[in-house]
């Protein structure tokens, strides 16, 4: 019987598969969705604030803010026109515009394809040595891509957060990017959840980039699946700029409160 039951089962599965494959090319028809200047900020992001006691004190006393961006490919600025277009560089100018009387410096210490473990291993040299007031830590992609135990991600984040807060450094976490083609083959959910849990446990703000980008895609402000060449570089720059502007809103609101 196993063979017979299986073959009926497989036939049903094959039918479902056919439906699935034919559903997919629908993407190709949607074109020209290149996230316009307005950035389409999600409503739920409007009142977000981070808990940044050390950075707030530093801004008040010394009128300056030193930030280190720790992260992986999307923090390096992969796919965009260069380091100046990556979100840390854009964040610096966005913050300078919002806080004109403060001297803001942002160091980009991201390296492509890094796991949380690799980032912790270079934390002393790359982060602590720079004596930052705030670390914006982008993570999770490497873990989600390799489908490792999501607990490895949250455990690593908790360890890293503890190390930084013990040295009087505030932390903001940033989760993974979203696009339809990658979400089809990567199960991001458990990793997004693991990051938000780590943030909740240590009272660290998690910038929900994944949810922001998913809302852009579902509301059809952007389509990542059919972009190539110059168009895709321009789009990457735009995404990084919008992410930086949202993040700047959150940081400015948190420092001004």
């Amino acid at each position, binding site marked *: 019987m196993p063979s017979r039951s299986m073959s009926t089962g497989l036939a049903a599965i094959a039918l479902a598969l056919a439906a699935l494959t034919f559903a997919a090319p629908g993407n190709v028809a949607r074109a020209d969705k290149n996230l316009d200047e307005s950035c389409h900020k999600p409503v739920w992001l409007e009142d977000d604030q981070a808990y940044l006691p050390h950075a707030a004190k530093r801004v008040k006393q010394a009128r300056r803010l030193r930030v280190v961006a720790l992260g992986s490919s999307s923090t390096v600025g992969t796919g965009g026109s260069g380091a100046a277009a990556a979100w840390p560089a854009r964040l610096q100018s966005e913050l300078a515009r919002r806080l004109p009387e403060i001297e803001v410096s942002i160091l980009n210490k991201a390296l*492509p394809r890094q796991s949380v473990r690799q980032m912790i291993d270079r934390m002393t040299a790359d982060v602590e040595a720079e004596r930052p007031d705030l670390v914006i830590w982008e993570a999770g992609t490497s873990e989600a891509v390799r489908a490792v135990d999501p607990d490895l991600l949250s455990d690593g984040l908790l360890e890293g957060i503890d190390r930084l807060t013990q040295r009087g450094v505030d932390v903001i976490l940033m989760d993974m990017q979203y696009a339809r083609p990658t979400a089809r083959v990567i199960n991001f959910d458990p990793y997004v959840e693991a990051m938000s849990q780590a943030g909740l446990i240590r009272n660290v703000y998690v910038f929900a980039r994944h949810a922001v980008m998913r809302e852009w895609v579902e509301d059809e402000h952007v389509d990542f699946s059919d972009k190539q060449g110059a168009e895709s570089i321009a789009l990457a720059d735009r995404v990084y700029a919008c992410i930086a502007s949202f993040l700047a809103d959150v940081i400015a609101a948190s420092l001004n409160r």
Partner: protein
Amino acid sequence: MMSGEGRDVRLDFFRGLALIFIFVDHIPDNLLAYTTLGNVVFSDAAEVFVFISGYTAAVVFGGLERKHGPLFAAVQVLRRCWSLYVAHIFVFIIFTAQVSWTAERTNNQMFAEEMGVVAFLAEPHIAVIRALSLSFQPAFMNILPLYIVLLATLAVLLPLIARQPRTVLIASAAIYVATQVFRFNPSTYPAGVWFFNPLAWQLLFLAGAILGRASLDGGVAFLARRDVFAASCAILALCVAVRVPLTILYLLDRSPAEIVAFTRAIGDKTGLGPLRLINFLALAHVVATLVRRDSRFLAWRWSKPVVVCGRQSLAVFCLGIFLSYAAHVALTEVNHSFVIQLSVTAAGVVLMYLLARILDWSKTRPGARPSGRIGASAPGQSAQGGK
């Protein structure tokens, strides 16, 4: 099923329910997942499925072993494993097709790191071998390997479970405890460990198998004792009293940091944390005692589809795994609004039922070949040579 009294419909019902819950839980980002077992107690449908699978496998194959000897039973167990193995490879092929398709179409360098997921396509000679040896477990492909490994152990352990159940239980528990203490877990390709650690989960499967085998010989006296039942009730009540408020706080987005840390610490699904195990065993004991074999609700109109799904569990389980992946893709392609979640979930459950119904019909039809039934999910019939 038990000593010629006919099938225990309770097993079909709860296994069917577990299969539906597993499908619902495995659709990422599904709000309906808040209606499943894992929100009421600390264990979830995975425990139910693994335990009942061990139980029914021991009843079916234990019956065969008693009648035709251990070698015959072992061959039937391995035949069943083979079906699961074929299903696993099938899911792998679908996943590979989906990944290749994505790799071919996605040139956007912004997602260069994400596209690392296609790395295995660059070394198919290794990836295929790893998939064949169950150690390649990408997203959505980590459940079948556990089931295959657990069932395969029965081929060897059946005679031991019949003759030395206590020894088997002690050895199994010792491996479980060692796993909890030393935290070892077989590694997977290209990185990571088994999502369901087989060295931990084997305890639940074998506990089910030992109880299932014992049911052929009149059950376990220890579990019929009043004080033991009272203890199980107390444990279960305590777990529900703690878990339900946690779920409500989570839904209201009001979980204090301490509670998130607490649920995270005890909710170790990969290693089947002790709380999950104890909670589940208490739940199983209470339900098995309170719900009688002839309970009226098992004959209700709305129970029947669930029972049918449980009866055809192998095919429904495999279809469910595929469907939850298909549902994930559907939610990605359209959007993940509640309406879409609801329709995708409902469609999946209906498809699972339809498949089960068709298989059920093709087997119970007069004139359907009884010979192929051995090892099927119609155990009562095969052990007794047809209805």
